[in-house]
């Protein structure tokens, strides 16, 4: 997965790091006594919102996988490393598939993946998870894909699934097409041709957008969801940064990037007409609403989610993604188990989620975090 986010609001992040670490250093000193005797079983409940509970036996933690959550992990790594000096974290953003592969070879303590484990992956994980354990999906990082555009005189563009599909498949070629005009009553649209931009590299952003289109375009997107762009026509650019800079530079253009790129490049994002009473804006809060309506896809301790791209809930932005951390429910490597649990306890905490919210991610809604908070202490 390659949803890159850039180093915007670095100063803000550093500020947050300093604040959180100063709070958590104090918490560390007192909590160590309790965790030393009883493992880290109490860490989930004992953690105050901003606290990091260090493991009794701290160990270097290895992770690999999704690059979508790369920046989120970076933020967490700094805060966590400052609080728990013995627990260095090393995360290698090699892509979701490769991350799961490394996890199933026992090379890393956890993997990050933008899609839930496939049954074959779960079977393979049993070789690594000792004592009858298996790999489980733990939702951790939320994100949204925003449809960015650059059209003079248009500032509140509204689109829906079929229209987006037609635009990116070159079935709609001018801005004043009746389909767009019908969604934007009272807006003067230019008659100029649409310059559509998509990703030239394989990308999880593309996969999420096309998953949304496949579900909601009423057959106008004739391709399956895929990391590789399949649409007809338009132009391509390398990485989210490339798409963002093309949309910024080229008049009458449209493209798709993650929220952080839309924000940092000052690009206008289209609202989506989902069938709710009014079009939904591309904001983190609206994306969290959609994630909250997701139904569980996993069973037992697996918390994989079924995202409802076709949601008609008021204020639910439909093009969202969730990155999972993947670990064993039972039989994690004993040396790193405590550190892993203390790290995940921090990342799902309100402070951890808020820290990445400042970087253009979507803090997960409490309906999801509550389940994760209950799950992490049970990992063994």
């Amino acid at each position, binding site marked *: *997965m*390659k949803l890159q986010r850039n180093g915007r609001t670095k100063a803000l992040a550093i500020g947050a790091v300093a604040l959180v670490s100063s709070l958590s250093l104090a918490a560390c000193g007192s909590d160590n006594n309790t965790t030393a005797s009883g493992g880290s079983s109490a860490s989930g409940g004992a953690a105050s919102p901003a606290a990091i509970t260090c493991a009794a036996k701290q160990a270097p933690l290895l992770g690999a996988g999704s690059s979508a959550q790369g920046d989120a992990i970076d933020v967490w790594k700094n805060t966590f490393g400052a609080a728990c000096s013995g627990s260095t974290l090393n995360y290698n953003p090699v*892509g979701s*598939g*490769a991350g799961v592969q490394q996890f199933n070879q026992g090379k890393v303590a956890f993997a990050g993946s933008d899609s839930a484990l496939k049954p074959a992956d779960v079977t393979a994980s049993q070789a690594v998870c000792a004592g009858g354990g298996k790999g489980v999906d733990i939702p951790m990082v939320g994100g949204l894909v925003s449809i960015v555009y650059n059209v003079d005189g248009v500032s509140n563009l509204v689109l829906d699934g079929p229209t987006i599909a037609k635009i990116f498949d070159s079935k709609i070629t001018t801005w004043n097409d009746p389909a767009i005009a019908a969604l934007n009553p009272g807006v003067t649209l230019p008659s*100029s*041709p649409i*310059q559509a931009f998509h990703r*030239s*590299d*394989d*990308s999880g952003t593309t996969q999420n957008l096309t998953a949304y289109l496949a579900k909601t375009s009423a057959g106008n997107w004739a391709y399956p969801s*895929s*990391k*590789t762009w*399949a649409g007809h*026509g*338009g*132009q*391509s*650019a*390398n990485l989210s940064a*490339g798409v963002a800079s*093309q949309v910024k*530079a*080229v008049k*009458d253009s449209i493209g798709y990037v993650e929220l952080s790129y839309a924000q940092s490049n000052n690009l206008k994002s289209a609202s989506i007409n989902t069938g709710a009473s009014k079009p939904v804006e591309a904001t983190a809060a609206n994306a969290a609403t959609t994630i909250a309506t997701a139904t569980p896809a996993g069973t037992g301790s697996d918390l994989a989610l079924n995202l409802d791209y076709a949601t008609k809930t008021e204020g639910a932005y439909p093009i969202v993604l969730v990155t999972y951390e993947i670990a064993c429910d039972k039989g994690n490597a004993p040396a790193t188990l405590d550190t892993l649990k203390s790290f995940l306890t921090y990342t799902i905490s309100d402070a951890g989620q808020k820290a990445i919210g400042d970087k253009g991610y979507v803090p997960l809604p409490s309906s999801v975090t509550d389940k994760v908070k209950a799950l992490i202490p049970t990992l063994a």
Partner: protein
Amino acid sequence: MTSSTPDSSGGRTTTTPTGSLQGNSRRGDRLFFVASAGSGILLLVIMAAIAGFLLYRSGIALSKDQTNFFTTFEWDPDNILKPSFGIAVLTFGTIVSGCIAMVLAVPLAIAIALFISHYAPRKIAQPFAYLVDLLAAVPSIVYGLWGALFLVPHLAGLTSWMNTYLGWTYIFRTTHQGAPARNLFTTGILLAIMILPIITAVSREVFRQVPRSHEEAALALGATRWEMIRTAVLPFGRPGVISASMLGLGRALGETMAVAIVLSSSNVLSLHLLDAGGGTFAQNIALKYSEAGPAGKDALMASGLVLFVITLLVNGGARLIIARRKEYSGANA
């Protein structure tokens, strides 16, 4: 070294001077022969290792490909249900952009080389030559950024002009008005600028090698400077210029980052050179590798093998041309 020192000193004291000299020179000869032959063999081994590696990985990929590798347009090797990938678009894009680059760069490079070697006064020629060499040292990513941020916007005018007045040629007609010129034509222009210094530098050196007697003979027969260049310099330099052009073409075919930034890649094979789209081997590998699964990586290796073969063919072709032109260099040398 340490073992040979006592040997030679021992030889000097016991045997006749001629014998020791012979022994030393033979040992030196042998050492040098082994070193140089070893280097040559090492190069062959490296080439064979690369070819073998590419062949092995390609074999894995091609056995999974469910479509014709040579005629398929799309690139979707990681599709579990139906892995399909082909090199038609890539081959077309690589060769066309390389050809555009050659058409633009070779005449310009020859002219610059002649200017430096035969026209410019010494004071100007040397700094000018240095400047051209400096162009070769610019990293390709910088060319790419320059191409994307400067060349593409500034080619908009030329593109629409060509569409209006040369549109009847079919290849210079655009079907998508107003789109940024991120097409094979722009890529060719950028590649031409990138290979210009290599071709210029080599051609310049070749032109300087032209025997003074040839030039003076031509001038003495009443030739003007241009006629002298045409009859004495260019024929002598032709094999060198061809070699230089092939070096340049090699770089153009394999250029990665600059193309990845400038060319809007797509799996469309279009003869409209001014329409965005197409792709090249190296660009495709650069764009797809980081997210490719195991099958995808093998497929990219297969495309790399094709580029390897194309480069070999181009170089082989150049060798053939040079060999056929031997009479020129032979007669002159």
